[in-house]
């Protein structure tokens, strides 16, 4: 009888991997994806990239032109993320199981969170472009909406993880709702929330490039411009700068995390 559980576990794993295999092979067959050609073209891409897609000395002339754009993109991401974080904090307090005021508030804020989260940021940019045309505001709002959905969800989980214990204790001392939020819930969850905020800023700088291509602003637009002019050296310099920026931001936020956690 006892051995059955091991047999069952083994069978379960077998069935799981079989299902995965069928799914994978099925997808390849249906989409007529040529696996061998797919992998061999990677080497081709690398060869092409190595011979064309690199910044040369001449492309450095564009630096004064694109550095302000890069700065604009970074600052826009930070602005969109931080403003979204403030609103997300309010929504998450209303939506979390432990701090919610009542069911209706909770359902409404959870609804808002999942609506904003599940619409891709590219779709936001396209839709907003109809109202605001190609302007930095469009990019800002697209990043803002995407961040709002994600951060609300992340903050809600953070608050739920902190749990009920200290809330119960403070209730028992006669503390009011706002006392409990500011003296127990926020101190306990703030470091984790800041960590999420930093992650969101990193992600948004990456996404801002893509949104910039669509909305014709920031560093994304520069890339698009140079690429379509077949000025691959300049375009690759833009990519390199984005990569460096993201790595720098990541290093900075890792250090901040180490201090606060």
């Amino acid at each position, binding site marked *: 009888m006892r051995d059955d559980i091991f047999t069952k576990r083994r069978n379960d794993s077998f069935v799981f991997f079989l299902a995965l295999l069928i799914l994978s092979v099925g997808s390849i067959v249906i989409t007529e994806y040529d696996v061998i050609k797919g992998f061999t073209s990677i080497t081709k891409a690398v060869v092409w990239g190595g011979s064309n897609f690199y910044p040369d000395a001449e492309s450095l002339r564009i630096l004064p032109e694109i550095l302000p754009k890069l700065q604009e993109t970074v600052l826009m991401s930070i602005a969109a993320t931080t403003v979204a974080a403030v609103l997300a904090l309010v929504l998450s307090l209303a939506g979390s199981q432990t701090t919610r005021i009542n069911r209706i508030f909770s359902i409404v804020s959870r609804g808002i969170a999942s609506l904003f989260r599940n619409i891709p940021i590219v779709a936001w940019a396209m839709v907003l472009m109809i109202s605001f045309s190609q302007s930095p505001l469009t990019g800002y709002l697209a990043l803002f909406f995407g961040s709002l959905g994600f951060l609300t969800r992340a903050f809600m989980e953070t608050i739920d993880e902190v749990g009920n214990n*200290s809330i119960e204790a403070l*209730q028992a*001392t006669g*503390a009011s709702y706002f006392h409990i939020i500011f*003296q127990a819930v926020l101190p306990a969850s703030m470091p984790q929330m800041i960590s999420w905020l930093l992650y969101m800023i990193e992600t948004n700088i990456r996404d801002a490039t893509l949104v910039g291509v669509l909305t014709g602003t920031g560093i994304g637009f520069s890339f698009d411009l140079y690429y379509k002019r077949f000025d691959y050296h300049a375009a690759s310099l833009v990519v390199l700068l984005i990569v460096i920026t993201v790595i720098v931001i990541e290093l900075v936020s890792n250090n901040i995390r180490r201090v606060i956690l």
Partner: protein
Amino acid sequence: MALLELKNVTKNYNNECCALDNVSFSVDKGEFVSIIGPSGAGKSTLLRCINRMVEVSSGEISVDGVISSSLSKKRLRKLRTKIGMIFQHYNLVDRLTVIENVLHGRLGYKSTLAGVLGRYSQEEKSQAYRIIEILGLNEQMYKRCDQLSGGQKQRVGIARALVQNPKIILCDEPIASLDPNASKVIMDHLRNISKEMGITIIVNLHQVEVALKYSDRIIGVNRGKVVFDGAPCDLTTRQIRDIYGSESEDLMFDLGERHAG
């Protein structure tokens, strides 16, 4: 008049009978009362009815002459300031320091703004220092609570309750997660608090011999009913069997030791 009086208190969860079934007793100022009984007998519910963390289904509870069941939210907060509570899992805000956690006990007296900003008067702070000193936590005063041992955490819990200037302290399994050494320190502190400060202590316990050693009075609970209410010396083997619903020889404790010691 008794400090705490329960009259025919009944509590049903989800219309199921009965977490508490027609419980009546009264407790005087400075009494040390232990509530013993098997897990799920209703000990925690009984304790939480006293400060209305759990609403009673019927019956009446008066604390210091105030009938608690009909109080408005504001009045209830005021009543709760008179009732301290300590918990099995301490329920501290781990990321805050000892002194900050202790001062949380003052929140019930605070306006919304003062409490949110954590503004405490000099008087409140010196009272907190004094209590921390009595409990022997001087050296830990500015340490974060996640760096403390279990016994130290529970002493912070006691300090948070004492800083409320309570008339009663409710203790929900205060030593269930502690080693015998720390348990003794905690129980000694609780006894001193009741003897020297005249604060009533009501404590849920799993350890019958601890209850026998420290209490002025023992209340035995089984299936929501009070099945014993009297002095420790009146507790016989037969009554222990009634409380725990099994042959006392099967229980892990020795009544004879008490008479020998």
